[in-house]
Each structure stands twice: as C-alpha cells, then as structure tokens.
C-alpha cells in the first residue's frame, strides 16, 4: 500500500533545459495538493506529465501502484481543468458536459440524466443550450469544472484554473472548489502561482523552484516554518535576518545578531552563518525592554493600511518590517521601541 500517485525520480528536459529535476513526490488518495511556484519552476510540466501530455525524460509515474508513465492521456481517467477552460467552442454547455460520458459509452438516457444533475449542482441548468462564447468567465469556469467531474475520474488536475477571473470571483470559486473537494472526497492536484490561493485551499503545498521541490508541507508548516530562503520569501512576507549560531540544541539554537542573542527554532550546527525568517505579524512591539528575544529598534516609517499599520523598524544596520493592529499604540516615526518575538516564530533557513 503506497501513495495513490507517485513520481519516482522523474526528470523532464526540453532540449538542454532541465525543467523538472529528479522529482520524488507522493500524493495520497483524497488529498488536495497544490503545486506552487513562480512561472518556469516546472509545476505545469509536472501536471502535464501526470495528465499524459508530456513524457518524462527519465523516471516513472505510478497511479495506485500501477506505472502510467507511458499510458496515453485518454486512458488515464483524470479530469483536467485548463487555465483558459478549453471548452469545446462548437458544442453547447450540455454537449460539453456529456462528452466524457459519451467517451465512456454510457447509455444515452443515463447521460442526459447525469448531465442534468451535474449542471443542477453548479446552477447552470438554465444555460445548458448556450455555446461557451455566450457565457461569462465564471460560468465557463464552472462548466469546465463540471465537465472534468461528471465522469467521476480518479484524479482532478487543475492548471491555474482561476487565473483569468477577477479577484472577487476567484475567491468565490476557491471556496466552491474547496467545498467540492471535501464533499466528494476528490484527489486534486492544483497548479498555481498564487500563494494565498494555495494557502486557503490545500491539504499540502509543494513549493517549487527551478524544477526542484523546496518544501512539501501543510499550509501552516510552509508558512510558519519555511525551510529555505526561497519558501520564506515566496510565501507571504518575511524579514530575513543574518546572524551567527553561537549555541545549538535539538530543534533550537541561539543566534547572535549584532549585539543581541536570539533564541530561534531550527536544527543547525554551532558556528555557522545563517539566515533567519521572521514574519512581520509575529513581531511584538513594546516600550519596555523585554527579557528575551528582543531587539532595540527605532520606528523609521509607518504606513497606514486601513485594517493594520506597516512599520519599518531600524536596529543598527538591520531593517525589519512589522505589522501592527490599528489601535495597538502610537508609533510615530522616530519612536524608540523594543521588538520581540517567540522562539518558535523565528526559523533558521537551510540556505
């Protein structure tokens, strides 16, 4: 009993360019996994290899312990939702949704019934005789989703499916997809470059950079305990602090930054120069010198954001960004203060 989907040492090259570099990845049944990364990080290529549109240059892909590396796309039973929806422009909404069922040679009457039920579920029944060009972006998106779900595939693959929608609609669709995933127990592999999308929807996030996995973890772990500098910077906003390890213990260390000795979390050996990641909202700002994990700072700038303030803090050569709730105090430029944090909120980065 292994993982439902497994990439084993998969490499993909286009000419001399290595797009996916020795990838090992396991996806459990019923999991919602996001592949997150900047464009060119190989995440779409991974999805296309899973769908069967691209062949790995080496390595193998397993589905339910069966190798599918060389199985053609139409025999993989995977519903793919493309970035621009890829609806059949010459067919009506109902014909689009019926297509995968016709391919499975489902009897005519049953097709009609299942198409109707599926369209009812996404409230598109009144539009079933329209052509895709007569629908709005959000409606097209729902048709594409319905078409990929209606034949009850083992896996749903989504390639930036919400990229073309406006912000409000995108957030609505995120919730709708998340809801579908929970209700139907689907296995979903979701490609995106939008970190907030990945954080809100996923069970796990795989962060990619230059064809390699930087970190695979739950959204909380990826955000709270980024393992590399790339992950820390790509997901959310962070302060990178350089220092030298003076003391190392199990899952924790003391790092000297300027004059201060800071307790941080992470597995690292003493004497090394390291980078630390500290999220802006985890910085506590106070007037009295705190006992532990504190840096004396001066407020260099204060930016109003409506629901919160962004403060730029200076501590010697170091510059930190902190996030303060609106009523958390008066932080005029030039104010002397103390910035502190809990050890588990500051992580040592691997590189």
């Amino acid at each position, binding site marked *: 009993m292994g993982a439902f989907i497994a990439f084993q040492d998969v490499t993909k090259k286009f000419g001399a360019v290595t797009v996916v570099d020795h990838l090992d990845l396991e996806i459990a049944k019923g999991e919602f996994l996001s592949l997150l990364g900047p464009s060119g990080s190989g995440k779409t290529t991974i999805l296309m290899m899973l*769908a*069967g*549109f691209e062949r790995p240059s080496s390595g193998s892909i397993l589905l339910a312990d069966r190798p599918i590396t060389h199985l*053609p*796309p*139409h*025999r*993989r*039973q*995977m*519903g*793919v939702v*493309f*970035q*621009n929806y*890829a*609806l*059949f*422009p*010459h067919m009506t909404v109902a014909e689009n949704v019926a*297509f*995968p069922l016709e*391919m*499975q040679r489902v009897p005519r009457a049953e097709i009609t019934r299942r198409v109707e039920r599926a369209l009812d579920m996404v409230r598109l029944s009144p539009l079933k005789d329209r*052509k895709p*060009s007569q629908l709005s972006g959000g409606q097209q998106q729902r048709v*594409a989703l319905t*078409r*990929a779900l209606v*034949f009850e595939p083992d896996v749903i*693959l989504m390639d930036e499916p919400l990229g073309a929608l406006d912000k409000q609609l995108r957030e609505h669709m995120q919730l709708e997809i998340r809801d579908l995933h929970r209700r139907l127990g689907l296995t979903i592999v979701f490609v995106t470059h939008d970190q907030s999308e990945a954080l809100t929807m996923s069970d796990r996030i795989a962060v990619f950079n230059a064809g390699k996995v930087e970190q695979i973890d739950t959204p909380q772990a990826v955000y709270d305990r980024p393992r590399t500098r790339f992950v820390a910077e790509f997901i959310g906003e962070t302060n990178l602090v350089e220092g030298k390890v003076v003391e190392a213990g199990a899952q924790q260390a003391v790092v000297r930054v300027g004059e201060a000795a800071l307790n941080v979390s992470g597995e690292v050996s003493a004497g090394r120069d390291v980078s630390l990641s500290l999220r802006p909202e985890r910085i506590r700002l106070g007037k009295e010198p705190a006992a532990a994990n504190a840096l004396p700072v001066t407020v260099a700038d204060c930016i109003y954001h409506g629901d919160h303030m962004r403060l730029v803090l200076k501590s010697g050569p170091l510059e930190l960004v902190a996030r303060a709730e609106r009523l958390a105090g008066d932080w005029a430029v030039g104010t002397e203060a103390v910035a502190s944090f809990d050890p588990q909120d500051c992580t040592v980065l691997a590189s």
Partner: protein
Amino acid sequence: MLRALQIVFGSLVVAFLILPIIAILPLAFTSSVFLTYPIPSYSLRWFEELVTADVWRLSIINSLIVGGGATLLSTVLGTLAALGLRGNALPLAGLLRTLFLLPMVVPAVVLGVGMQIFLVRLGLASTYPGVIIAHAVLCVPFVVVSVSAALQGIDPAVEKAAMSLGAPPITVFRRVTLPLAVPGVVSGAVFAFATSLDEVVITLFVAGPNQRTLARQMFSSIRENISPTVAAAALLLIVGTLCLAALAALLRRREKPAVA
C-alpha cells in the same frame, strides 16, 4: 484634409478596379449583334443564346464539372496537407509548406506546358480527369492556406481537454479538430471553385475541345467572333463569383465566435 485625400484616393483605386467590369455588363442586355456602345435597345437574346447554343451550354456544364471535380480533389488534398503540416512536427515542414503554395506563384504558362507534357505521358491529356487534376493543382494552395489558418485558430488545450476526457486520437479529430476546422475547409473550397471557374491559361494547354470551360469559351469567342454573348457570360461569372465571395465572407463571420 488628409482624411479627404484618403477618401478620394480610395475611391479612385476602387473605380480603377471596378469600372472595366461595370463597362462590360450593360452590353449583356444589348439587342445589337455588336459588342459596342451605344446600346440601341435592351433584350435578353444573348442570355438565351448562352443557354441554347451548344458551345455555350456545353461550356457552362463543363465549367461546373471541372470546377466541382477540382474543388473536391483540391479540398481533400489541401485539407490533408494542412493537417500534416500543422504544428511543424514534420521535418522540413516549412519547406513543404512553401512547395504546396508554389502553384500560386509559378507562371501559369509554365505550369500549363508542364502539365500538358505530364498528362500526355499519363494518357490523360484532353480528358476530364486531366483538366480536373490540372485545375486542382492550382486550387490546392488556397485550401492549404485557408485550412491552415482555421487549424491555427484552434486552441491546443481544447484537443488536450478532449483527450483527458477519454477521447482516443481519432475521436479527438472527428469530434473536435475537424468540426472546428470546417469553416476553413468550406471557405477554402469556395476559393478553389472560384479559381477553377475563371482559369484560362492552363485550360488552354490541357483541355481538348470536349472540355472547353466557360472561361475558355469566352476567350476563344472574343478572338473568333466578338458577340455580346461574351458579355452575358461575363455577367454570369461575376454574379456567380460574387455569390461565392458572399458565402465565404458569411462563413468567416460565423467562424470568429467559434474561435474566440
């Protein structure tokens, strides 16, 4: 000021292109036996001549047979060629594409001489299949261009989507690629038919007396005995071509929302 100049210049160009055509048309309705102005009185006798006189009637039928055959042949060949050239997956696809378009630029006389020698070898000179083949050579580039453009307008993701939904390659072609390319195929066929309809030079070389087409008949009629029947035939050709052009334009309009 510039705008006015543009309009004047545009009108002059249009007049330059259209006036010779307009000049011939009224003569189709003359009652005189001479192809000259002024027109003494109006009659339809030359249209009658066109459909009753054997040479003319036969030439119209021949044009339809040759045009139909050449259209069918070139549409099938051109569509297959465009499909094969798609995506430049073939080695030397660029070179092949140029070769397919060559009949558009090669002088018709050269093509005609070559065709005649070639068809004599095959024993097809002065036969319907011979003329149809020769015309089809000329028509293929129009089909290739038109179908290629239609194929280019198809989003590859649409075909991928069909595959992922369980369609094997042949079904993807039958249910998705071909239906989306149909407007291009039809407009290519319309161009092919129009090309065959007014082709004279190659017909002169490869057709015998029995395959005399309307255009060819007009050509010889002008040389032998200039009668207003030529004007009537011209009117027929122009109306026919306009209808075809309108059909092509209509298809093009319908094609757009499908691609978007």
